């Protein structure tokens, strides 16, 4: 029975995800193309700013920024939409007995799908621009799984938090802006001063973005030590977030005024 219930939850997440993707595709004239255009557009903006300020341009800069932007948009998009989804699906949760993590997971899965679509285009582009697949690409699935788990482990606690205190939403958007600037999205680790470089890598997103670059652009294995630390941090967050959801699952709706 427990298995059947979990199977049903997994089905809900899976089919709601497909529905969410279809639904987004039908919303705009360009439909699914926006999955590709949106990250390219923001990359173009940053590339223009970056090349004008640093005077460095060309294909390396484009790919550098693209890797940072794609990973970051997957991260931020999933979390900001996923964390708000208990609130937006309040009327459903008030009628149906469902675990509250279901709708955040659906939003995360939709964003993950978008990321996977655009990453296929990215890999093609990288190959054309002179960075063909190398043996270290075998690390990429590991990298993606770690980032997916990191996203889940951050989105779930925030989804509870913003439902209980709407104030948190404002604080969190500022924190995201901060992390956007310190995760190395439009600059490289070697541009970070030596003295703060160790602190720089305490940030899991900085580790993931740099790992992606070392695999694709530098043709070398990612630092397994840093990746290992990131995995441990993520695992701790995950345990915490499911514990938090277990604690609040049946009471959160009584404590809010959505």
């Amino acid at each position: 029975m427990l298995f059947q219930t979990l199977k049903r939850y997994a089905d809900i997440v899976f089919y709601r995800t497909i529905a969410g993707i279809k639904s987004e595709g039908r919303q705009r004239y360009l439909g699914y193309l926006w999955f590709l255009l949106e990250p390219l557009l923001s990359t173009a903006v940053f590339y223009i700013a970056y090349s004008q300020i640093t005077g460095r341009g060309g294909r390396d800069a484009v790919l550098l920024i693209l890797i940072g932007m794609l990973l970051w948009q997957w991260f931020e998009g999933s979390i900001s939409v996923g964390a708000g989804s208990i609130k937006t699906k309040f009327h459903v949760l008030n009628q149906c007995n469902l675990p509250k993590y279901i709708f955040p997971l659906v939003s995360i899965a939709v964003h993950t799908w978008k990321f996977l679509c655009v990453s296929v285009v990215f890999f093609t582009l990288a190959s054309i621009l002179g960075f063909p697949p190398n043996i270290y690409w075998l690390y990429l699935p590991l990298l993606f799984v770690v980032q997916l788990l990191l996203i889940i482990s951050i989105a779930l606690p925030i989804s509870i938090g913003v439902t209980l205190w709407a104030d948190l939403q404002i604080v969190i958007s500022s924190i995201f802006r901060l992390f956007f600037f310190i995760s190395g999205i439009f600059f490289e680790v070697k541009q970070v001063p030596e003295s703060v470089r160790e602190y720089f890598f305490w940030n899991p997103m900085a580790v993931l973005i740099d790992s992606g670059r070392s695999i694709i652009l530098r043709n070398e294995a990612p630092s397994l030590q840093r990746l290992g630390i990131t995995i441990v941090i993520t695992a701790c967050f995950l345990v915490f977030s499911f514990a938090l959801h277990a604690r609040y699952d049946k009471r959160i709706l009584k404590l809010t005024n959505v």
Partner: protein
Amino acid sequence: MSELAPIITLQNAGICYRPLRSLFTKNKKEIWALRNLNLTFYEGEKLGILGRNGCGKSTLMRVLAGIYELDEGRITFHKKNLHVELLSLGVGFESNLTGRENAVLNGMLMGKSRQYMLERLDSIHEFSGLGDFFDYPVYTYSSGMNVRLGFSVAMETDPDILLVDEVLGVGDKIFHEKSSRALKEKFTGNRTVVLISHQPANLKSLCTRAVWLERGAILAQGDPGEVSKFYEENIHAYTK
């Protein structure tokens, strides 16, 4: 009543809403929607619940459906894996998806597997009377068509305990007759049904027992005819 087996028991049940506070309002109120409620639901019975707005009827339904956890007291389910479901109409429809797609997704939210819903799509389609619109996106629907679809899906999700919150028929005249007939059929079998209604006539014709809920506790219970008579005679004494 004695030969019926209990299926859910509430002992001293209490549910408390704690609204969010803000720095600039001194709202520290706790709202006890249910308090010291002792109530047993029996297998196969049709229980009607009466009470004025805000007396805790809908909160009680959410407790039974497993959406809320009690703040006080105990709830005991006497059978394992009971499927308790609140009758809801079109909750969580995605406007960009078709009626067919929404029917399956909606049924899954209400505790059924995808396979189960796929097998019943034809009867949902037929019952809803939506015709070609069944394959149109839901945003093209009128509000009446929306409840038609919602109701048709809800009729196919067959829970062990059905909770009905005042919805006894929906839509235009034709669908209203059809839907209330279908819903009333749910009261004839062995299924346990809990009905909230403000219509004494419905309680009398559909229920085997009635409860008057007031301020989160029971004021009277027993035969539906007697309880609704008592309710109508005394309701004004409690609304002052």
